[in-house]
């Protein structure tokens, strides 16, 4: 029986990646068995995530470790002529290149699409810049945080009627980028396998973010309205909200989508009067009186323990859930049932656990995802096994500052 972690055995990808989206995209392909050779260099530049939270130890940055599992790490100075030559030799033997540098960075070094496709006409070059390679703002520097605000996601991610945007502390567009890039890469790999064709793909992380908000743009385009934030309110369900429970920062969500679910909710609340209250008789009534309904829900849930009430509601057929924090996730019995977390006992940052991912291949046992290697761990192996150089050549290039 094969393992999902070997699906991409034999696929070789060169990765020029930094930060969150690009590296994690490479990690996902590596996790499923691709040989992802990540190229960094002291003189040429290191992944920025190596510098965060590591007391100067570039191999002990937690976020870097999280985003680069299972990759191979190679140091090549791509500003050196011999470094460029090595990259081209590698490109000749690779299926694809994955890059999330700013547009034209590789091109200015003589490693642009044309040069790489010259040495390997069927190679796939997948680029994942913030706003894309073309267009008047292609030179902008952006983080996922900025792309959230550019696309309209920040604007819509708010409670209704606020006088300022809130959005997110996080970098959701990076998440969308690192799940979309391997998906598009897989389509390109299938195309390459079936037709022999290579291609250059320019994936804009800003557009990937907007791609998820299509309905909002249709509201503008078809109905002529600029959509406004809805917060936790729904156009169809009520009650539909997030309510404080007993304890510090303990919250419960409830989403009632039908009259049947409403009657079940009233049953769990033990509130016969509420079930007969004409203000809340139908979905339309409940949405019309959503403020009053939220007040009723808030009063009731404030006296409940979320771990108890959310499960009682679900058991009775009412959609509800604990607003889970990091501890809750790590202890979640459903995620544990899925063998969701891979445990690493021995790492530069001590023991930890990491999510494997959102999908399981049923009846195919998963293997351990290898820990992120130290910088340059695979330089010699790649030079020897992939490119066929001997120890003397490798030693010479190390001394000359090419393989560092």
């Amino acid at each position: 029986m094969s393992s999902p972690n070997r699906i991409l055995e034999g696929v070789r990808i060169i990765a020029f990646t930094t930060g969150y989206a690009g590296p994690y995209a490479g990690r996902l392909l590596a996790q499923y068995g691709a040989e992802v050779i990540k190229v960094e260099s002291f003189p040429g530049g290191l992944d920025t995530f190596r510098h965060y939270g590591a007391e100067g130890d570039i191999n002990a940055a937690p976020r870097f470790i999280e985003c680069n599992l299972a990759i191979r790490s190679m140091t090549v100075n791509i500003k050196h002529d011999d470094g460029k030559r090595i990259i081209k030799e590698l490109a000749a033997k690779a299926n694809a290149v994955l890059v999330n540098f700013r547009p034209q960075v590789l091109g200015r070094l003589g490693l642009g699409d044309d040069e790489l496709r010259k040495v390997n006409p069927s190679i796939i070059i997948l680029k994942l810049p913030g706003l894309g390679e073309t267009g008047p703002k292609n030179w902008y520097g952006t983080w996922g945080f900025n792309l959230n605000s550019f696309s309209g996601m920040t604007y819509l991610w708010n409670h209704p009627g606020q006088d300022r945007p809130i959005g997110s502390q996080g970098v959701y567009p990076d998440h969308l980028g690192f799940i979309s890039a391997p998906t598009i890469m897989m389509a390109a790999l299938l195309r390459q396998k079936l037709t022999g064709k290579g291609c250059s793909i320019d994936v804009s992380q800003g557009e990937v973010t907007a791609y998820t908000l299509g309905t909002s743009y249709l509201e503008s385009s078809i109905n002529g309205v600029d959509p406004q934030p809805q917060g936790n309110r729904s156009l169809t369900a009520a009650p539909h909200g997030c309510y404080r429970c007993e304890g510090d920062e303990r919250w419960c969500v409830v989403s009632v989508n039908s009259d049947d679910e409403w009657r079940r909710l009233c049953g769990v609340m033990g509130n016969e009067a509420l079930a007969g209250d004409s203000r809340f008789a139908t979905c339309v009534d409940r949405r019309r009186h959503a403020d009053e309904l939220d007040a009723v829900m808030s009063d009731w849930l404030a006296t409940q323990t979320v771990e108890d009430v959310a499960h009682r509601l679900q058991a009775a057929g009412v959609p509800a859930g604990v607003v889970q924090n990091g501890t809750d996730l790590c202890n979640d019995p459903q995620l544990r049932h899925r063998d969701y977390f891979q445990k690493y006992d021995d790492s530069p940052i001590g023991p930890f656990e990491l999510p494997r991912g959102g999908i399981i291949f049923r009846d195919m046992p998963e293997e351990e995802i290898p820990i992120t290697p130290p910088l340059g761990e695979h330089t010699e192996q790649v030079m020897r096994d992939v490119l066929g150089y001997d120890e003397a050549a490798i030693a010479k290039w190390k001394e000359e500052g090419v393989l560092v």
Partner: protein
Amino acid sequence: MSAESLLPSGFRVLDLGTAMGAFCGKVLADLGMDVVKVEPPSGDDLRNEPPFAKGRNNREGSLRFAYFNSGKRGITLDLRRETGRNILLDLVERADVVIDSHEPGYLEDLGIGYGELVARRPKLVLVSISAFGQDGPYRDYRGPDLVTNAMGGLLFISGDPSMTPCVPPGGQSYVYTCLYSALGTLLALWQRETKGVGAHIDASVQASMALHEHVAFTWSSEARLMKRAGSQHQHVAPANLFPCKDGWISFFATQRHWPIFLDMWEGHPTELDDPALIDNAKRRAAADWLNPMVASFTSQYGKEELSVLFQKHGLPALPVNSPRDFMEDPHIVERGFFGTVEHPVLGSFSQPGVPFLLDGERRGPRPAPMLGQHNAEVLGGELGLSEGDMGVLAAEGVI
């Protein structure tokens, strides 16, 4: 006209997806697969979901249906009837992928679970999308988007700390899971091409969300709980939304950017020159003190004007756009992200194409199917049912 599709033609998908799984089929259609959406004769539930085009609640008017099913073909089939299920199995024989997002056990109970499907089509890829997974203690829990965002951990860290946690817009937990499921589908097809085996993929919305923003990892590696922080980034400052004369701007300055920012800000408060503030952690710890000062600078400018000024100095900043601002942005217009869709009922409108350029060209958007639009084409033309058969099926309410 739009560019060629990324995938070569010939991949066939049967999409039994409900609202939860609809975007997976759309992604695969946008990549070039022939995706046939199978709806009950009364129509997919999503057709009844607002917002509606021009307020008209009819079977073709749901904008969510129109977007999440764009690029697919559509047929109707009543899977609760044996005749309907037999036709489905005939279609499965000709398919590479089946997507399903009914509650776990639904297809098995109808006698068309993975085993029955594979018996008719060896090497099939079945993608089962559900809120929590195909088995386990929460298997039968209901999972609207609000619940899966909560149970997946993203809701807890979203929103202003003085307010209620705030769910992301547009059904993001479903959308994200569908992207993950599309990746799984393509991995499974690669495995089929290289190893000759099919696969059954179990996608969980909760599991797809629980890897976000290092929430679980921060607890497991540092025993630290991430909490709501509004728009303030957890490790960096200034990394927040700041007021402008005509709106807001997002500005994100790491230690590399900080000295550049001070240089461009003539007459900045001298206490900001404290060398200790070069360090990300020091600035983050001082965010409550720092942010109002930064705001006093940003509020002198318009948001677009300031983002250009910041960018010219190499500082990452972009305006907070409404959806319409984004659609009208010259960069988005020049890249041709939006294309025109012609729909028999909805008319002509702008919709995103695929979010990438293939060799410099973009594949534009296509309309969603009307209810039963491709019945004759698929069931007649491709499956070979006669007009008479189709008439009987229609009269019996199977199609």
